[in-house]
């Protein structure tokens, strides 16, 4: 009996740790959507870029963990702003489907340029973060899992604070509500949207570096599947709702692990995307969807 309970708890730990990675990526997704109603499919690729920038910062410039994380976030933020300026801004007033397709195009572009420049070989991420394993009553967990969960929670709170309580956040919400009205009120809409992208990309990069360290393997295609799953997590939690990304991510992670534990691992991805379909059918607004009326 004890062994079964241990296994259940271990699986729960596995699920929460996987879920906090989805949550980490989903935060940026959901925030960008909340402000400009664009599903930024390139988000997963910015996440990949972030991981690579962190990799180079550590390997070439010999930085330690925190400076590398900050550098990755800053450089990715810059990329986010450039992408928005070049690819999305010219389409600001065209249909949403045009912007969506452009986002897919940007995603492919980044992936393929990365493949060309960095070669498709997986690289192993340097061990810059000390690894400590804990065994508590037969359940294994490690400090990196805790850090990822902690960072995800921390960023969720910070993001919530920025959007809710800062001047820029108020401007973001105003743009989300009605960008024409916001412009008439003297808000520099372009600047607000640039800021949104910078913030979203910095979040993606932070996720990339952390996940790179956690799994110790990065490659130019790494943004694909986690990006999609994070998207499902964002929809599940209620796209555009910041705490929703956290909840959606954790639910996804635990659900995936539960599928493996209870049935067969063959169904893992099918269930992840099955969740998306069920959510869209039964509760399109997501778990925390009621707050959607405020649109952030």
């Amino acid at each position, binding site marked *: 009996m004890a062994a079964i309970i241990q296994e259940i708890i271990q699986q729960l730990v596995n699920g929460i740790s996987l879920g906090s*990675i989805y949550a980490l990526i989903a935060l940026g997704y959901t925030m960008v959507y909340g402000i400009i109603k664009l599903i930024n499919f390139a988000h997963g690729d910015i996440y990949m870029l972030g991981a690579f920038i962190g990799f180079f910062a550590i390997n070439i410039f010999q930085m330690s963990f925190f400076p590398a994380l900050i550098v990755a976030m800053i450089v990715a933020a810059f990329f986010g702003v450039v992408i928005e300026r070049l690819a999305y801004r010219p389409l600001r007033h065209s249909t949403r489907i045009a912007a969506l397709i452009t986002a897919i195009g940007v995603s492919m572009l980044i992936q393929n340029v990365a493949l060309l420049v960095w070669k498709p070989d*997986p690289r192993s991420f340097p061990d810059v973060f000390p690894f400590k394993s804990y065994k508590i009553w037969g359940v294994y967990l490690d400090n990196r899992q805790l850090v990822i969960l902690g960072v995800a929670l921390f960023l969720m709170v910070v993001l919530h604070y920025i959007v809710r309580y800062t001047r820029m956040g108020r401007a973001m919400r105003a743009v989300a509500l009605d960008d024409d009205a916001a412009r008439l009120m003297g808000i520099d809409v372009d600047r607000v949207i640039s800021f949104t992208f910078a913030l979203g990309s910095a979040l993606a990069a932070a996720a990339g570096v952390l996940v790179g360290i956690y799994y*110790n*393997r990065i490659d130019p295609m790494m943004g*694909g*599947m986690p990006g999609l799953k994070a998207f499902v997590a964002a929809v599940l939690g209620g796209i555009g709702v910041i705490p929703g990304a956290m909840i959606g991510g954790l639910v996804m992670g635990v659900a*995936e692990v539960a599928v493996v*534990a209870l049935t067969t*691992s063959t169904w893992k991805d099918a269930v992840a995307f099955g969740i998306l379909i069920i959510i869209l059918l039964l509760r399109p607004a997501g778990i925390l969807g009621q707050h959607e009326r405020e649109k952030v």
Partner: protein
Amino acid sequence: MWMSRKRMLSAFMVLFMVLAGAVGALAADTFKVGAVGPTTGPVATYGLSVLDAVTLAVEKYNAEGGLLGRQIELIVEDNKADAVETNNAFRKLASRDQVHAIVGAVVTANSIVGSQVAQMMKVPMITPTSTAEKVTLEGDYIFRSCLIDPVQAVIMANFVYDSLNLREVAILTAQTNDYSVGLTDVFIETFGNLGGKVVAAESYSEGDQDFKAQLTKIRARNPEAVYVPGYYTEAGLIARQMRQLGMEQPILGPDGFDSPKLFEIGGEAILGSYFTNHYSKETEDPVSKQFVADYREKYGVDPDGFAALAYDAALILFEAIERAGEDALSKNIAAARQAIRDAMAETKDLEAVTGTLTFDENRNPVKSAVILKVVEDGYEFVERVEP
């Protein structure tokens, strides 16, 4: 200047015919060999090893005067390990480039696509590394220089049962991969027939990074070893996560483990694993030694198993062309291709890098395999298994 449409058309026709004639005349001077493999994409290290080795073989033969007095012209196509790209590459080589034969593809799923095109257009194809049985079953123009999956899985099952003396094994399969699924099926059957027990069979998708859920489930069944029939990209991560969950069992694998990246990704966790492979660079065989020396001189690194197999694929093809003689020189490309195919099928006791090989009736080589152990500074030769 104004020309009637008709005159312009005929002018173009003349130009086209002149060009086509020129191309035809050039083509007659060389043996064209296509090579298809991923030089970009997630498994590029395989493709690059293969292409490097084929290039080495081509240069070696050309330096010695080519084949039947003609030089070999190598045309490389990157298929990015993608099915559609593979299809396009094979069609281009077969019809536009009019190659005599194709070496490739590298990944099993691609070779299955490529074999359909090659068989349809009747171009001899030899895959160096695709181990799934069904690749050569596509038709009589399809060959390979590696052992087939069943052989690898049978060898591993026997090794686990007899040499390691283990009875309970768990399997973690890449369900999105033909190669991995093929190995799994044969391993389960063989190991079961020997009297062993597969206590857990779990799966993952290629590109997954988290395997802890599957591993936790496997751990509960207490296996004595875990068979991971897949590629190095995942095997390294699986090894790490096993150790993180307190699992100390040895990991068993197929030739997909053969990459320097295995050590980078797997670190200490991967040490002590065993895998089946096509060759060991520690052998004393003269053909093998010469190849290792040549390869090291040209590329500055040791050849891996993929390179050895690719070199053998080229060797089988080139030797067959020499044996086909006059018929392979035919201006009629279809006749030349058929002559080359016939000669390839008759390959017998060829001294190649990965052993002395003879083709069986399904154009699979009959030759030996090796078991290697992953140790700190590379692979340690454990035993050679004769067919």
